[in-house]
């Protein structure tokens, strides 16, 4: 599968992406998780904590004679994943663009550029053909429009039952569907009943393929910065993610 998880900030993208990755990995898939968010999120939901030992991709990049970033000679996508991806639970490999440090964006520009080039060449690697790739994108439309997840064929748009979340979901789905061959599917998150699902479906104008219930276990995992699948493995929301994964596999 080739997936990207998108939506408004706070809609639950990282929780969905992190839990989907863990579920898929436990089913025996080789999972490459791809994190282009400059803010922490996915690492927590995968169960790595806020600041795992990072392998920033800065070393993969250099500037050419015109001052433009490029990958260093000899570093292709396979090598980059081997060297710069880190291990996450259940055998997941995680590649990250980098996180904004105190000094601003300047120190991570090399890493950021290397990541962008590598994700655009993941399709060249034969040995990745059988892998599941799952991207967690930052809030909003920016990374979709600028093609930060070129590996993705299906975009999972996460919407919670609020007007702003639905508006954002509609906007990102519209951009995804401007590209040929790409699918966008909606899921509802943090619903407290059928009325919330209907509310989301009315606001986005179509059916959702899954609805994750508001769930105390997941909420507590969020508060503590833990992976929902570790902290609340039997919660209804995790069960719904398992159903979602099955649905996506049959799309």
């Amino acid at each position, binding site marked *: 599968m080739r997936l990207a998880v998108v939506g*408004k900030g706070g809609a639950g993208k990282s929780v969905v992406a992190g839990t989907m990755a863990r579920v898929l990995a436990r089913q025996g898939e080789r999972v490459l998780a791809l994190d282009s968010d400059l803010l922490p999120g996915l690492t927590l939901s995968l169960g790595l904590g806020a600041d795992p030992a990072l392998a920033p991709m800065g070393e993969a990049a250099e500037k050419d004679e015109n001052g433009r970033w490029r990958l260093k000679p000899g570093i292709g996508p396979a090598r980059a994943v081997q060297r710069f991806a880190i291990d996450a639970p259940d055998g997941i490999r995680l590649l990250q663009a980098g996180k904004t440090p105190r000094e*601003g964006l300047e120190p991570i520009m090399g890493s950021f550029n290397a990541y962008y080039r590598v994700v655009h060449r993941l399709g060249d690697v034969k040995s990745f053909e059988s892998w599941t790739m799952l991207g967690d994108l930052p809030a*909003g439309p920016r990374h979709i429009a600028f093609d930060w997840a070129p590996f993705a064929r299906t975009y999972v748009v996460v919407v919670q039952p609020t007007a702003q979340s639905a508006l954002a979901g509609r906007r990102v789905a519209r951009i995804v569907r401007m590209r040929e061959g790409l699918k966008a599917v909606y899921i509802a998150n943090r619903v407290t009943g059928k009325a919330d699902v209907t509310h989301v479906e009315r606001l986005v104008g179509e059916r959702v393929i899954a609805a994750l219930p508001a769930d105390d276990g997941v909420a507590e995992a969020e508060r503590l910065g833990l992976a929902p699948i570790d902290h609340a493995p039997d919660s209804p929301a995790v069960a719904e993610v398992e159903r979602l994964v099955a649905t996506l596999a049959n799309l």
Partner: protein
Amino acid sequence: MKIAVAGKGGAGKTTVSGTVARAFARAGHEVLALDADANPMLGVSLGVGPERTELLLGVRQGLETGEVEHEPTIEGMVERFGADAPDGVRLVVASRIDNDSPGCQCCGVSPDQLLRELEGGDRRTVICDLEAGLGTLARLEPGNADAVLVVANPSAKALEVARRAIEIAEDKTEVIVLANRVRDHADLDAIRAVLGDRELIVIPEDPSIARADRDGLAPIDLDEDSPGVTAVVALVDRLAGAPVPA
């Protein structure tokens, strides 16, 4: 005065920004609400409604499509592309990314530039709702904003973003931290454990604000006396000083 509002997506930036803008306007200020998010939503929490918010043209896109013939001034852009919101607030959307070829972001008018060049001063109060994350804050220069409101709700991710936002902003301007959607002492303790022992403006969990968010209304229109709105208005009274006589 110029105030920027920052935080993780979903922490409540836009809801706070809209309510702060309306409260300043009700205190007698001339208010310019600048939506600096590429996913602009400020119209919703200002009370313009989701449908009209969706129709607002970004300044950047307006200029690109030739809506203005001559070299525009900043004030000219506000005049041309601004929309009226309740209580006399003027709303300006800096830029919206709404297609799959949005063009080079280094060229043309940027949200950063509008925040930098718009004049606050005695004449007017600018409330700027930033894009989720730390990008704009990282590029902020001293003098671009008189204060940054950092909005955090009690989740590990939002607090981590808030911690970084404070670190980045406090060298450049005054930082005021808003603890949003606080239910109890445990929430406050969780926030203090990450952000330390600094002053927090506490905005309690508020069913009326939750309903406004659900239905796409301005919280201040749904119930101006709800606990959350009251907390925001109290902050604005402090920032605005004495109410300006009509």
